[in-house]
C-alpha cells in the first residue's frame, strides 16, 4: 500500500515498559524502523516527567506497569494536562486481547492497541497508519482544542474530502464541532444517522449526550439503558445512566447501575467517589466505605486524587463502628488512623487539607470516645486555621463547620460560616445547608442583600448601563468585600466603562486596586482563570493609556 514515507529519524519516541527485556526488544524494533531519538522509562511517574520535559511524536506504552500507574492512567493524565501534541501517536501495548479489556473513557482512547507478542513489521505498519491518520486529523483537532468550532467544522469537512479513508473519524470530529456550536438538532441528526446504520459506541453516546443537553431526560435514560446492554464494556454509559437516575430521585437505581460498572472496572476514581456518595444517601454504609476505600487505593497512583475520598472514607468508617464487635472495632480504628496518616503525608504542603484533616480526625476521635485524640486534633485545627491563606471551598466549609458544631466548637464554626456566606451567597445549595448550621441570622440576611445587589448590577451590565452597574457592584462589595465574584464583576464593568467613558485612567486604576485585594484565590479555584484574564487585560489597558 502506498502510505507516504514517514521520516522516522526525525520522530521522537518514548517507550514506557517495566520489563527491561521487552523494553530492549521494543527499542530494537523502533531502531530498525529508523527512529533515532528514543527514550525509555520504566514506570508511569517517569513517563509523565519525561513528557513534561519534551513533547514526543510517538509514545509506546505497556498497559500493565506493575504497581505504578497503568497505561490508561498515563494517557488520561497526558491529555488532561496537555502534555501531548494533537498529532502525538499513542500506542497501547497489552498482554491480553483488547476485547477482553474494559475500555478506558471514550475521549481518552489510544490511537491503536497492539497485543503481545508482535514483530517489527507489524509495529511499523501500525505506526505508518497511525502517524498518517493523526497528521491528517490534526488541523481540525488543533482548532477543536482551542474551541474554535466554526473553523474546526470547516476544516474537518475538508479533511473528509481530501482523505475519504478517514471518513468516520472526520464525522466524529464534525459531531463534536456541531455540539460545541450548540447546533444540537444537526448534531443529533448526524449521530442518529450513524447509529441507525450501525450502533457504534461514540455515536450512541453522542445521541444520549445530546438528549441530555436538550433536557430530554426520559429519552436519554432509554438510550443509555440500551447502550449498556449493547456495549457492556463502555462504562460511560453506566455513568450517564446513574447520573440521570440520581437526578430523577431514583437514588437506589443509580447505585445499582454504578455497582455494575465498578464490578467491570474498579479502577475509576471518579466513579467510585460517585458510588460512595450515592450509597451514603441510600444509608448503605458498607458500600459507601468500600467505594471510598477503592477510591483511595486507586487514587494512589493518580494525579486526580483529592482529599475528599480520604475524608469520606474516615467518615464512613466512623459510621461502620456502630454495632460491631470489639475485634472488628480495633481493626476499623486502625484503618482510619492509617487513612489520616496517608492523607496528612500526601497533602503535607497544603494547610487547607491539614485543617480539614484535623477537624475530621477530631470528629473521628469523638465517635470512639477518645478524649485525647479530640483534644489533640482540635488544638491542631485551631493552630492551622490561622495559617490558611486561601478561601475554603463551599462544600469544605459546610463539612468542616458541621463537624466543629458537633464537637461544640461554635466560635470557630461560625467564623468559617461567616467567611463562606460572604463568598458563596450565590450558591443555592450552599445557602440551604449553611442556613441550617448557623445561629447568626444576620449572615443569612446579609447574603440575601448582597445577592440582590449583585443581580441588579448584572442586569444593568447586560443592558450596557455600566454607570449603574458599577454603582450597584460598589454597594454589593461593601456588604461582601471579599467576595471574589462581585469583585471580578466590578472589575469587568470598570474595564468596559474605561473603553467608552471619559475617565479611563481612573477606572483602570480602580480596577487594578480591586484586583490587588483579591489575594486569597487558589490557582485550583474555578474562579482563578477569570481572575487572571481580567488581571492581564487590566495591565494591558493600563499600558496602552
Amino acid at each position, binding site marked *: 500500500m502506498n502510505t507516504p514515507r514517514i521520516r522516522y529519524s526525525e520522530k521522537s519516541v518514548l517507550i514506557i515498559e517495566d520489563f527491561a*527485556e521487552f523494553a530492549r526488544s521494543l527499542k530494537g524494533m523502533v531502531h530498525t524502523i529508523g527512529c533515532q531519538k528514543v527514550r525509555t522509562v520504566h514506570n508511569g511517574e517517569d513517563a509523565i516527567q519525561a513528557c513534561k520535559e519534551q513533547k514526543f511524536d510517538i509514545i509506546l506504552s505497556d498497559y500493565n506497569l506493575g504497581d505504578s500507574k497503568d497505561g490508561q492512567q498515563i494517557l488520561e493524565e497526558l491529555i488532561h494536562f496537555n502534555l501531548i501534541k494533537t498529532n502525538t501517536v499513542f500506542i497501547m501495548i497489552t498482554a491480553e*486481547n*483488547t*476485547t*477482553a479489556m474494559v475500555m478506558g473513557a471514550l475521549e481518552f482512547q489510544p490511537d491503536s492497541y497492539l497485543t503481545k507478542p508482535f514483530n517489527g*513489521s507489524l509495529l511499523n*505498519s501500525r505506526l505508518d497508519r497511525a502517524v498518517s491518520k493523526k497528521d491528517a486529523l490534526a488541523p481540525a483537532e488543533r482548532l477543536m482544542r482551542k474551541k474554535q468550532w466554526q473553523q474546526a467544522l470547516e476544516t474537518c469537512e475538508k479533511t473528509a474530502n481530501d482523505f475519504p479513508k478517514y471518513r*468516520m473519524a472526520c464525522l466524529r470530529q464534525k459531531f463534536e464541532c456541531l455540539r460545541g456550536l450548540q447546533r444540537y438538532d444537526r448534531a443529533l441528526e448526524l449521530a442518529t444517522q450513524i447509529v441507525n446504520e*450501525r450502533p457504534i*459506541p461514540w455515536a450512541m453516546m453522542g445521541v444520549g449526550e445530546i438528549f441530555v443537553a436538550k433536557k430530554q431526560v426520559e429519552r436519554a435514560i432509554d438510550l443509555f439503558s440500551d447502550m449498556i446492554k449493547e456495549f457492556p464494556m463502555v462504562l460511560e454509559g453506566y455513568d450517564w445512566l446513574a447520573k440521570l437516575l440520581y437526578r430523577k430521585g431514583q437514588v437506589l437505581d443509580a447505585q445499582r447501575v454504578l455497582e455494575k460498572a465498578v464490578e467491570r472496572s474498579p479502577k475509576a476514581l471518579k466513579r467510585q467517589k460517585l458510588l460512595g456518595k450515592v450509597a451514603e444517601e441510600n444509608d448503605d454504609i458498607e458500600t459507601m466505605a468500600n467505594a471510598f476505600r477503592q477510591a483511595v487505593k486507586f487514587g494512589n497512583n493518580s494525579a486526580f486524587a483529592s482529599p475528599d475520598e480520604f475524608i469520606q472514607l474516615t467518615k464512613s468508617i466512623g459510621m461502620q463502628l456502630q454495632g460491631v464487635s470489639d475485634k472488628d472495632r480495633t481493626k476499623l480504628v486502625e484503618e482510619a488512623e492509617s487513612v489520616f496518616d496517608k492523607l496528612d503525608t500526601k497533602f503535607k504542603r497544603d494547610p487547607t487539607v491539614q485543617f480539614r484533616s484535623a477537624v475530621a480526625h477530631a470528629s473521628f476521635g469523638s465517635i470512639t470516645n477518645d478524649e485525647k485524640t479530640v483534644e489533640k486534633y482540635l488544638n491542631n485545627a485551631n493552630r492551622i486555621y490561622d495559617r490558611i491563606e486561601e478561601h475554603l471551598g463551599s462544600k469544605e466549609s459546610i463539612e468542616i463547620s458541621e463537624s466543629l458544631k458537633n464537637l461544640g466548637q461554635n466560635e470557630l464554626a461560625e467564623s468559617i460560616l461567616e467567611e463562606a456566606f460572604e463568598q458563596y451567597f450565590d450558591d443555592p445549595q450552599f445557602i440551604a445547608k449553611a442556613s441550617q448550621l448557623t445561629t447568626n441570622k444576620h449572615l443569612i440576611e446579609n447574603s440575601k442583600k448582597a445577592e440582590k445587589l449583585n443581580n441588579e448590577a448584572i442586569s444593568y451590565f447586560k443592558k450596557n448601563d455600566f454607570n449603574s452597574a458599577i454603582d450597584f457592584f460598589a454597594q454589593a462589595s461593601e456588604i461582601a468585600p471579599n467576595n471574589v465574584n462581585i469583585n471580578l464583576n466590578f472589575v469587568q464593568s470598570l474595564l468596559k466603562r474605561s473603553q467608552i467613558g471619559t475617565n479611563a485612567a481612573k477606572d483602570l486604576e480602580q480596577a487594578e486596586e480591586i484586583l490587588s485585594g483579591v489575594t486569597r484565590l487558589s490557582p485550583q479555584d474555578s474562579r482563578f482563570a477569570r481572575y487572571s484574564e481580567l488581571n492581564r487585560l487590566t495591565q494591558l489597558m493600563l499600558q496602552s493609556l
Partner: protein
Amino acid sequence: MHNSENIFSTILASTVHDMKNSLGMMLEALDSLLDKLEDSKTDPKYGIVQYESMRVNNSLMQLLALYKIENNQLPFNPSYHNVYDFIEEQILIHEPLLKAKGFNYTIDVDEDIEAVFDESLISMVVSNIIGNAIRYAHSEIRVSAEIDERLSIIINDDGPGYPAQMIELVGDYMLGINQSTGSTGLGLFFAQKVAELHSHGEKSGSIELANGGKLGGGAFLINIP
C-alpha cells in the same frame, strides 16, 4: 458478586496471561542468545520455534475467548475498519515465517472499503487461518475480500486442501479432531463462534470451507453481515 464461574474465569485469564508472559520471555531470551551466534536466525529451526510458540499463544487466547463466549463474559466491540489495512496486518503478523519459508502472498482487496467488525476477534480468526495455510501450503497464499450486503474474507492456499470429511462436517468440529495431524478442532470451532457473534439484525455470520479456488488448495471463507 463472586460466583465460582467468575472465579474460574479470573483464574483462567490470569493463567493464560502468565503462560503468555512465560512464552514471551522464552522467546526474548532465545533471541538474545541467538544474537551471539552468527546466521542462527536464518536457520529453519528458528522459524519452527517462532511458529510453534505463536500457535501455542493463539490457542491460549482462543481458549480463553471461547470460555468467555460460553459464559457471556466476552464483550463485543464492533467498529469501522479499513479492510485492506486489516488484512495486510494479518499477513504481517506472519511475516518472519513467510520470509523464512519463501512464501508469496497476494492481497486482493479494494483499498477504500470499510466494514464493521470486532477487530481483535476477527484478527484471531484470520491470522490463525493464515498461520495454518502457511503450515500446509507449498508456497503461496492469497487473501481477498468482497463486500456487498456483507463482508466476506477469503483465504486461499496452494496446499493439498481440507480433508473431505472436514468440509462436510462444518458445524460439527468434534468429528474433525485428529490428534495424529494436530487438528484439534479449536480453530474452526472458534471461527464459527466468532462469526455467530457478528450478527446484525436478522443476519448472522458464518464460515465455509472448500477446496480448489484460485490457488487450487484450501479455501476458507468467513462472512460477516
